[in-house]
């Protein structure tokens, strides 16, 4: 269980205080898939970095399985938005996936198996020897996902991972993430600014206000577990949920402007 309790983050620079996150509290059940959406610039990335232990909060706490997060905790993986910068350009694809396992002290044979499996799972079974920059953007993000899979995390955080890939690739990757989640049984927190994506992917959607960020609404997505791009998106319930999230975000934007 991932618990965010009273989280606040204030950036102070050049004498100006910018309150990025006001007061955020929510919980993510172990093994669940939660999407976080909010208007652009609402501090989604800040929230995710606090959860990952990459950024110390100004106030409040993040707790993972009962222990407070003060630095990157064990068993947590992050897939960053900037795939081009999160992969080591000097390592081949397989070595990129392999490096965290080496750091974790996994033995060679096991590492090999995990790397092969993870790359197969994302459909890159034949790209072991390529360098990341020889791949397209979508494929690079697949490598980043494979790296997370091979790491076998208990919690997987994804920070707008598909913001920079084209629409068709994006649909494929969404389905990939769903299947990975179902197979691995990880706790998945998925940050996005895309409302369709959030509703399509998550079991729950947490909507945020403009900064200073608060939780605007916590919505359960009662769509069936088996989802696919055609039928799920055609489902009237999908349209309804989507409309609700959309309205909430619009409201948050307006409030944000009014302030």
């Amino acid at each position, binding site marked *: 269980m991932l618990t965010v309790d009273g989280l606040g983050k204030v950036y102070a620079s050049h004498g100006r205080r910018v309150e990025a996150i006001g007061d955020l509290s929510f919980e993510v059940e172990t093994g669940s898939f939660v999407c976080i959406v909010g208007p652009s610039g609402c501090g989604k990335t800040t929230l995710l970095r606090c959860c990952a232990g*990459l950024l110390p909060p100004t106030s409040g706490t993040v707790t993972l399985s009962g222990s407070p997060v003060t630095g990157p905790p064990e068993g947590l993986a992050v897939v960053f938005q900037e795939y081009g910068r999160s992969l080591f350009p000097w*390592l081949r694809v397989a070595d990129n996936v392999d490096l965290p396992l080496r750091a974790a002290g996994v033995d060679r044979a096991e590492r090999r198996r995990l790397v092969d499996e993870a790359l197969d799972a994302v459909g890159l079974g034949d790209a072991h020897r390529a360098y990341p920059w020889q791949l397209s953007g979508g494929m690079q993000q697949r490598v980043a996902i494979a790296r997370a899979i091979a790491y076998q995390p208990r919690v997987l955080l994804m920070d707008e991972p598909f913001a920079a890939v084209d629409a068709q690739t994006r649909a494929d990757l969404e389905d990939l993430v769903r299947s990975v989640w179902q197979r691995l049984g990880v706790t998945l927190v998925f940050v996005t600014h895309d409302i369709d994506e959030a509703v399509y992917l998550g079991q729950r959607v947490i909507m945020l206000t403009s900064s200073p960020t608060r939780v605007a609404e916590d919505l359960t997505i009662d769509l069936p577990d088996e989802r696919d791009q055609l039928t799920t998106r055609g489902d009237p319930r999908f349209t309804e949920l989507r409309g609700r999230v959309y309205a909430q975000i619009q409201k948050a934007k307006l409030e944000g402007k009014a302030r």
Partner: protein
Amino acid sequence: MTAVLTRVGLALGLPVVLVAVWWFASAGSTDFFFPPLRTIVEVFGPTWFGERLVDDVLPSLGRLAAGYAAALVLGVGLGVLIGSNRWVRAVTEPVLEFLRAIPPPVLVPVLMLVAGIGNGMKILVIISGCVWPILLNTVAGVRAVDGVLEDTCRTYRIRGTLRWRHLVLRSASPQIVTGARQALSVGIILMVISEMFAASSGLGFTVIQFKDGFQIPEMWSGVILLGLLGVLLSMLFRVVEHQVLSWYHGSRTAQKER
């Protein structure tokens, strides 16, 4: 096929023409200080391929190699230390900028006082000149490690040696290589200069001896040998760079095409 021929022709054409011009223009030269190229080429072999190769050329190159290697280790090591700490960086930066700005040859007389006139002094001279470009470029490179990659290492708990090897050093390697290239030309300069000051062997020493003994064709051959060595070492450097930085050039080309 024709494309290859054209390229070879373009690469060799001008050098061949220039050498030919030199050859024929100097053929009948009676000017003592501009001997015919033919004479220079004739003395080149006997002058350098023999005892002098072992007694002068190799010791010079050995000192260069030793000094350069030490400067690499020292420069990269200190550079990583300084570059990865904001405070250390802020404190040392002006001092380093100053030390780097000192033209390295002026340190020769000082180092002679301190380290005498033997191999130690000459290696120290080479280190003292080569270390700065490497050090400062390493600092800049380490400083510019990508934030996302840094975060990636943190979340995946990649630490210690693995982190130094696979994140810090590799990130900084394009800049380290730039520094190393600058250091190489400084090193060659200092190899020669240190031998012009006090020596009983070495390339620089021998060339000066030829000058003092008025053996002008031999002196020219020494100048040419130094030039060839410079060219050879820079070619060698390119081969190594190609190995070390293939990922860098590849990713840059990929970026440009996108």
